């Protein structure tokens, strides 16, 4: 028997993220928890969820226990509807075929901008991170769900470098910078679920994860948080969600 009260942070992220997806949507998923969560949603509630991978895949059905090591490996194509070029699948974002982009994040700020390029000054970086991959394209062109670990050093007032744009400097600045479509929709962490204020575009807490207090979320965040007027508490992972997730990733490649 799976004990639903015992789970890793990554399992929590995958399950709560999967709950955000809806039947019939077209989802562009990154590697790791996003791929796993999209596949989980497909197995649990959304058999008609269409998953896209940047390697050039439309309509993936990743096999349990055969998770790909990146979204550019042959395993991504198993039982897919179509394989196509990487530029072609990315251009589907630009044309508008994608409902949700779904990525992990290294560092995020109060406007939902993501950094996966540099820690410190980009001309003389303390750390050179891997870079955007498709992240910039996805976040520029569609509505984003980001699943990431919640730590004070990762939730900062302003990112060192905007790799993947959220709402940039808030207000209308995203559209003014040439990005009229998309934007941050949800951020999912092991502490809470976040959305963004319609006007200021500041991150706000939509729901607390079970057993988590407002203070815990604020204490782990590097900027002042807004809490939604209808702040709710998320339902804990069910046994069914956890067993299905663990069946998909038996080697615990992405669920830790």
């Amino acid at each position, binding site marked *: 028997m799976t004990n639903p009260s015992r789970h890793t942070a990554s399992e929590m992220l995958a399950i709560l993220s999967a709950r955000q997806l809806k039947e019939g949507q077209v989802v562009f998923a990154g590697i790791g928890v996003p791929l796993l969560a999209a596949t989980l949603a497909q197995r649990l509630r959304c058999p008609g969820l269409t998953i896209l991978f940047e390697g050039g895949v439309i309509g993936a059905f990743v096999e349990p226990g055969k998770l790909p090591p*990146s979204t*550019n*490996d042959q395993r991504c194509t198993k039982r897919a509807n179509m394989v196509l*070029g990487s530029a072609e699948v990315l251009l589907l974002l630009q044309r508008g075929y994608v409902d949700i982009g779904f990525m992990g994040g290294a560092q995020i700020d109060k406007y939902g901008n993501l950094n996966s390029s540099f820690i410190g000054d980009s001309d003389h*970086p303390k750390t050179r991170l891997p870079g955007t991959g498709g992240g910039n394209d996805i976040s520029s062109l569609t509505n984003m769900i980001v699943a990431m670990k919640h730590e004070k050093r990762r939730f900062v007032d302003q990112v060192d470098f905007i790799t993947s744009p959220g709402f940039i400097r808030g207000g209308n600045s995203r559209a003014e910078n040439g990005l009229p479509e998309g934007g941050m929709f949800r951020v999912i962490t092991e502490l809470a679920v976040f959305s963004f204020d319609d006007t200021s575009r500041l991150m706000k807490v939509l729901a607390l994860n079970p057993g988590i207090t407002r203070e815990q979320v604020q204490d782990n965040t590097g900027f002042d948080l807004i809490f939604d007027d209808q702040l709710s508490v998320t339902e804990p992972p069910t046994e069914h969600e956890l067993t299905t997730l663990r069946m998909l990733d038996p080697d615990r*490649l992405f669920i830790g």
Partner: protein
Amino acid sequence: MVARDTVQPYKELRQNLARRDRSLREKVVTLEEAASFVSDGASVGIGGSTMSRTPMALIWQLIRARKKELSCSRCIISTDGDLLLGSGVSNHIISSWFAQGILWGLSKVMRHHIEGGHARYDEWSHMGVGMRFRAGAMGVPFMPMRSMLGSDVGRKRPEAKEFDCPFTGEKLLLVPALNPDVALIHVQRCDAYGNAQIDGLQFMDIDLAMAANRVILTTERIVSNDQIRRSPDQTKIPFFCVDAVVEVPFGSAPHECYGVYEPMMNHLEAYVKQVNGDPIGGMKKYLDDHVYGPKTWNDFLSMIGIDEIVAASRRGRSIFDD
């Protein structure tokens, strides 16, 4: 040779192409001969993506030939990028993502060379790299696109220009054509003329082949032209943009070749542990043992080991199972 950061003049592109022998001719060469097509300082486009269909045997040969100052572009670059920087063959990488693989975190080799200022890593969005090869393939100096705007990825690349659309007034980003001096592409099969058939994910290889001033193919196997002509719809790269063909079974090892073998993870994990533990000494030892040491590519394969190669092949071929 194309100056870095500039678009190659159209006249020059056309002249280069006019000079290439585009007749239906055999062009099979050895790995050593193929490497001689790459001059020091050349811009080199690398096919495949991440750990898939990497032209690893040819990169291995470029390192053995001690090439210098190559500017290498690839949509997503992984352990091949480590080897190119760590060996001193390249001092400039153009890509959207550079690490060994998502499973292993950051590449200490990349960090050592880039943070230390020994080499440049120009970061473009994935689609940005694609549109640069696409413009190069189309024979136009740029492509407009709607990402990289408003981000520091765009701001960090003055070669890309923001532009107000003359039709709609919208803000767009123009990314410059990338026409590498030479493209290195690994495929499952081609004929002796270079008609290449690619199974599975094609990544940006068709645009890359069309954009490049020269193309070297490595292939798992050379098949007859008759066989190509029986399924011309499977041919993804036409012979007349190919300048050399090398038959190299397991030419992407330890990376994957769709439908033939999956990545050889034991070798890669041991590699990552060694070079991330010591990005200078560990890399030197890897190069001495696995690149300079073996007499032939097959000798390198035997160092990966028959067990791992058989296991990777079984997994690779299983993609065609029900």
